[in-house]
C-alpha cells in the first residue's frame, strides 16, 4: 500500500513513472477524507492546490528531473506561514489570517517539489504538550482516540502515524516534535538551534524555537532535513554552517560510537519504560557502541528554567497581536486600551494567557533578577553540563517521555502536571542541541520513544544512530490498528 512505503521508495516509483504525483496525492487526500474526522489532525486542507502542485511535480518528473522529495506529499504545522493559505497557529487570534508569504521552510520544501496536503492542528501558539489547547479542538491519537497524541505538533504527529502523509513539518521549543513523535510511534527530529530558518515561523520563544520534521524513518527525516537546513539571511539567528549530506552517512557503522546514559533520565524511570531502554541499549552495544553513564547534575532545573524563559519570551513575541494590523479584533472597542485588552483577552485561549502573564510577571520590575536573570544563569549551568558530557560521549540516550499517551482531559486542570511531560525533552532546547525520538516499543499497547541528543550540528550522527537502530528493529514500521490499509 502506497501509504506504508517510505519516502525513498515513493521517490523511486515516481522516478520510474510507475505512479504519478497526482495519483499519490489523490491517495493521501482520500485517506484524509476517510480517516481524519476521527483524528482532527488538520485545520486546513488544501486539496486543489495539492493537485496542481502534484501536476507541476509530474511535469518536472516528465522532463527528466529527479529529486528525493520531488512529487512527495507533506503537511505543514499551522505555525508556518503559507502564502495565500490560512495560517492560524491553532488560535482564534489568527482564525481569519491568510499568510501573505511563505516561510523559508515552506519555500524550500516547495522548491524541492513537495505537495502540501494541508495545515496541521497544533496546541495554540505552540504552547502545550497534548494538542488540547487548540481553538480547533483536540487532536486524537490514532493508537487510541481517547488519548492525546502529544503536543504541540500533535496534528503533524497523528497524521504521520495514521499514514495520512509520509512527511510533516513541526516545531520544537520544549519538546513539541520529539514528545508527540514518541506518543504516536513515529520518528521526530529537532535540529540544532539555528540549523533551520525561523523566517515565517510564528514565534513563541525566540531562543528556543526550532523547525523540524516528522516521518516514519530516520532516512525519510534525513531527506527532509537536507532541504530544510541551511543559512538564511532573513533569520538573524540562522547559523552559517555548511549542511552535510545527511543521507550519505546514515549507513555508517556505529562501531566505537560512545553513547552516554544520562543518570538523571534513568533515575525514577517507570520500570516498563526502563525495560524498553535496556533493550535499546543492548541493540546499540550489539552494533558496536560503548555505553557509559554520564551525569548532568543541573538537568532537574530544566523544567522550572524553561517555564521562566519560554513564557518571558512569549510575552514579548505575542505582544504583536493587538487587534490593530491583523488577527482578531473585538467588537465595539470603546477606546484603544479596550481594543488591546479585549482583542487579546478574547482572541487568546487560557494556556496562552497563563504563559503571557507568567512571562510578564518574571520580567516585571522587582522580579526580573529573581526570575528571568536567575533562569538564564540556570540555563548556562545546564548547557555547560551537556558540553562536559559531550567531551566524554558522542551522543546521549534516554526516554523521550515519562509515560505513554495519557487520556484527553486528564491533565488539563493542572498546568504544572502538564509541564512535567517535557521533563526529558526540555534540556536539549535550553542548550540548543539537536535531538531525535524514534519508536522503541510499547507500554499498554501504546508507543514509546527513545531519545538521542547530540552536540551542536551533530544531526548526521543522530540520524546515523537512529537509522542503524531502525535497521536492527522494526518498531518504526508498526501502524496503529485500523490505519495500515
Amino acid at each position: 500500500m502506497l501509504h506504508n512505503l517510505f519516502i525513498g521508495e515513493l521517490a523511486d516509483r515516481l522516478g520510474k513513472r510507475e505512479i504519478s504525483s497526482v495519483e499519490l496525492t489523490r491517495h493521501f487526500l482520500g485517506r484524509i477524507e476517510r480517516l481524519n474526522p476521527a483524528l482532527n489532525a488538520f485545520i486546513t486542507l488544501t486539496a486543489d492546490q495539492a493537485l496542481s502542485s502534484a501536476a507541476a511535480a509530474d511535469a518536472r518528473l516528465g522532463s527528466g528531473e529527479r529529486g528525493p522529495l520531488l512529487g512527495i506529499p507533506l503537511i505543514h504545522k499551522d505555525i508556518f506561514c503559507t502564502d495565500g493559505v490560512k495560517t492560524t497557529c491553532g488560535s482564534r487570534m489568527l482564525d481569519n489570517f491568510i499568510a501573505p508569504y511563505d516561510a523559508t521552510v515552506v519555500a524550500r520544501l516547495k522548491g524541492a517539489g513537495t505537495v502540501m496536503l494541508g495545515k496541521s492542528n497544533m496546541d495554540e501558539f505552540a504552547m502545550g504538550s497534548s494538542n488540547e489547547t487548540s481553538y480547533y479542538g483536540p487532536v486524537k491519537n490514532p493508537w487510541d482516540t481517547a488519548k492525546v497524541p502529544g503536543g504541540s505538533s500533535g496534528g503533524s504527529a497523528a497524521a504521520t502515524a495514521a499514514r495520512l502523509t509520509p512527511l510533516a513539518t513541526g516545531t520544537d521549543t520544549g519538546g513539541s516534535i520529539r514528545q508527540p513523535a514518541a506518543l504516536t510511534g513515529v520518528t521526530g527530529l529537532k535540529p540544532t538551534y539555528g540549523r533551520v530558518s525561523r523566517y515565517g515561523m510564528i514565534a513563541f520563544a525566540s531562543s528556543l524555537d526550532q523547525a523540524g520534521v516528522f516521518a516514519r524513518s530516520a532516512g525519510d527525516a534525513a531527506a527532509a532535513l537536507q532541504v530544510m537546513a541551511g543559512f538564511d539571511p532573513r533569520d538573524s539567528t540562522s547559523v552559517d554552517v555548511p549542511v552535510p549530506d545527511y543521507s550519505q552517512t546514515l549507513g555508517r557503522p556505529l562501531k566505537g560510537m560512545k553513547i552516554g546514559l544520562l543518570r538523571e533520565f534513568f533515575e525514577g524511570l517507570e520500570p516498563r519504560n526502563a525495560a524498553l531502554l535496556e533493550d535499546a541499549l543492548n541493540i546499540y552495544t550489539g552494533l558496536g557502541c560503548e555505553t557509559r553513564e554520564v551525569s548532568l547534575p543541573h538537568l532537574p532545573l530544566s523544567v522550572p528554567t524553561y517555564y521562566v524563559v519560554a513564557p518571558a519570551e512569549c510575552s514579548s513575541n505575542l505582544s504583536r497581536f493587538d487587534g490593530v494590523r491583523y488577527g482578531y479584533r473585538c467588537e465595539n472597542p470603546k477606546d484603544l486600551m479596550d481594543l488591546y485588552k479585549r482583542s487579546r483577552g478574547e482572541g487568546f485561549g487560557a494556556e496562552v494567557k497563563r504563559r503571557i502573564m507568567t512571562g510578564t510577571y518574571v520580567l516585571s520590575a522587582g522580579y526580573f533578577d529573581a526570575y528571568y536573570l536567575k533562569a538564564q544563569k540556570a540555563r548556562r549551568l545546564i548547557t555547560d553540563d551537556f558540553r562536559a558530557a559531550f567531551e566524554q560521549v558522542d551522543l546521549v540516550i534516554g526516554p523521550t517521555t515519562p509515560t505513554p499517551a495519557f487520556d484527553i482531559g486528564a491533565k488539563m486542570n493542572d498546568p504544572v502536571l502538564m509541564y512535567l511531560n517535557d521533563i526529558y525533552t526540555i534540556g536539549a532546547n535550553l542548550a540548543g542541541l539537536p535531538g531525535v525520538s524514534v519508536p522503541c516499543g510499547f507500554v499498554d499497547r501504546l508507543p514509546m520513544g527513545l531519545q538521542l541528543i547530540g552536540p551542536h550540528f551533530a544531526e548526521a550522527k543522530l540520524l546515523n544512530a537512529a537509522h542503524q537502530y531502525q535497521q536492527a528493529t522494526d518498531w518504526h514500521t508498526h501502524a496503529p490498528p485500523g490505519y495500515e490499509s
Partner: protein
Amino acid sequence: MSLTRQDVEKIAHLARLSITAQEMPVYVSSLSSIVDFVDELSRTDTEGVLPMAHPLDGQHQRLRADVVSESDTREKYQLNAPAVTAGLYVVPRVIE
C-alpha cells in the same frame, strides 16, 4: 509565594489582557502554582554564573548593507487588517 488577585490584575493590565471576574480565581490559582513551581530556581547556587540569553556561543547580530532591497507590499499585507482607510490602520480615537 502565592499571587494575590491584585497581583494578577496588575499583571493582566501590563500584558493588556482582559480577564473576566469568573476567570480571575482560576488564573490566580494557576499562576500561583506556576510561580511556586519555578521558585525552585531561587534555591540554586548561581554565584559567578553568567546569564545565557542565546543557546549558541559566539553569535552576534548580523547587519546588512544599508540599501533598499524590499518593495512596497503594503496593499498585500493590509488585506488581513480589521480596518483600513487610505492605507492607514484604523483604531478608536487615541488623542482626546
